[in-house]
């Protein structure tokens, strides 16, 4: 099959968990990578080595281990900055996860400052967002008296761009959208939307939680007018650990936003009356940061860079095309989202007529196949299709065509088991 990673079997050996079996001795078919990805040995080893040999707090400890830990932590930042082609490494802020990164922006925009959102202002999101890119903006607009508006999408899972002129006006202060949808798989036109938003002076916030694992990202190479102002993603979907997220923000914007959380290391000086704040990125990193997680994330993005993100993307597209072909052979199965693999990401949500997604997932699980069933934190997007929930398969760098065959075969079995059709 064209496009697959050349050393797929070697890659699989990098992920120790893929060697385990179910209680019945069946091989594990992990098709839930959009939920969280598995971790290669090199990430596990980097974290263990750090804890065994270099553990100390960062930037506060004036001793050997403190210096080593600080170097390892900041080294993680350098690697992440390189991974997304950040124009400056100090523009990379570590958070707890992507949700916290989005909340950091949405909450600080309610505070006093040049970008403060107020009554009559408009914040634009889309109907295909993960709840984490809807709820923080609802909270912002409810607190400030601003209006929340959104792009809808069509049957094919594409944003309705005919709404651009109506939604993006001089009143619009923020335009936020997902780069790649976690439910539909849709890849949104980042450059086009960003250019339009910038024409009216709006801040553009992009949720790259599903994009960063799959697409080569080079922020510095984007024309300034088409480069978002903020891009966020989470560590655990790019073969890194949980507990760490990334916020990249344009320096001038991050400097103008007030601090989010107050605490240790985000300050310059503190008196009982008031404080002055640290420069970037520490201004937004109050308290002891996720140190070993940053070390693990650094190893993770280096691992992906080693495979080559162009190759990772090609693999994802090849597997997705093969999966769409296979799913089409299952009677009564409807894919919710774009059907052209070259125009979409690797998460494929579907309905199987007559069988509830939980029951689909249960039958698959008994056969060692892990998928997600539910609303995938995208309830508005499901409502659009008139369904409560769906089943979602999502592949990654270690997924083989054979695993897709196992999924398709198990879906045929599921229909038989529930006597549908």
């Amino acid at each position, binding site marked *: 099959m064209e496009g697959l990673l050349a050393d797929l079997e070697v890659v699989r050996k990098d992920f120790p968990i893929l060697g385990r079996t179910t209680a*019945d001795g069946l091989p594990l078919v992990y098709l839930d990578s959009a939920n969280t990805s598995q971790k290669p040995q090199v990430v596990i080893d980097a974290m263990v080595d750090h804890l065994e040999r270099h553990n100390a707090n960062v930037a506060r400890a004036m001793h050997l281990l403190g210096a080593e830990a600080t170097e390892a932590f900041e080294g993680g930042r350098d690697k992440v900055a390189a991974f997304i082609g950040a124009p400056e490494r100090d523009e990379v802020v570590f958070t707890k996860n992507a949700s916290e990164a989005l909340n950091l922006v949405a909450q600080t925009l309610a505070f006093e400052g040049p970008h403060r959102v107020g009554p009559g202002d408009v914040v634009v999101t889309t109907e295909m967002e993960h709840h984490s890119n809807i709820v923080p903006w609802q909270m912002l607009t409810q607190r400030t008296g601003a209006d929340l508006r959104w792009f809808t999408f069509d049957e094919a899972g594409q944003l309705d761009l005919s709404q651009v002129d109506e939604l993006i006006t001089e009143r619009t202060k923020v335009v936020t959208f997902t780069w790649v949808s976690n439910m539909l798989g849709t890849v949104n036109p980042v450059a086009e939307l960003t250019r339009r938003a910038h024409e009216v002076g709006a801040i553009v916030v992009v949720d790259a939680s599903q994009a960063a694992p799959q697409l080569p990202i080079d922020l510095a190479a984007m024309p300034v007018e088409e480069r978002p102002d903020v891009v966020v993603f989470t560590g655990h979907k790019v073969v890194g650990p949980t507990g760490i997220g990334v916020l990249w923000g344009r320096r001038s914007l991050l400097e103008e936003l007030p601090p989010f959380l107050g605490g240790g290391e985000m300050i310059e000086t503190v008196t009982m009356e008031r404080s002055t704040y640290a420069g970037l990125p520490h201004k937004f990193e109050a308290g002891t940061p996720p140190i070993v997680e940053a070390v693990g994330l650094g190893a993770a993005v280096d691992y992906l860079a080693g495979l080559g993100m162009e190759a990772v993307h090609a693999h994802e597209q090849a597997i997705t095309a093969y999966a769409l072909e296979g799913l089409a052979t299952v009677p009564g199965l409807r894919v919710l989202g774009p059907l052209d693999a070259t125009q979409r990401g690797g998460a494929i949500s579907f309905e199987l007529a007559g069988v509830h997604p*939980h029951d689909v997932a*249960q039958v698959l699980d*008994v056969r060692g196949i892990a998928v997600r069933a*539910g*609303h995938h934190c995208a309830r508005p997007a499901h409502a659009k299709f008139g369904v*409560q*929930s769906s089943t979602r398969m999502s592949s990654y760098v270690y997924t083989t065509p054979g695993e897709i065959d196992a999924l398709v075969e198990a879906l045929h079995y599921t229909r038989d088991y*529930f006597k549908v059709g």
Partner: protein
Amino acid sequence: MSAELDALYQEIILDHYKNPHHAGLRDPFEAEVHHVNPTCGDEVTLRVHLEDGVVRDVSYDAVGCSISQASTSVMTDLVIGKPVEEAMTVHEVFLTLMQGKGAVEPDEEVLEDGIAFAGVAKFPARVKCALPGWMAWKDATGQSMTTTAQGGDDD
């Protein structure tokens, strides 16, 4: 592999799933509740009609998996026609079965078709699927009793 599935999806459950008993929303009723399972998005709207301390009708409109649909259907069979107090006891017995991690021997005298859910108790992730209909019924019945009591005061 199929044996494990069959323990969960007993014929009785699949029968109730395909042909749910007492489905649909009906009048009269004293209370209507709407319960949601936030993790999976399953929903149930359920009405209860009480008369002289007896459950006269339970009607519902539900979206959910086979376990949740079948459990709601079985629940209506078990509570309709029973005095509220007795129906509440059945609810307790069912709850005990579901929380028993598969170690509780179900009493067919009390639970009738409900014994089919003994297998579900062995799947921790699915136990919550079997409960929303029952929880909605308990909630609506509590509200109906308040309404009925208030109605009584007015007489």
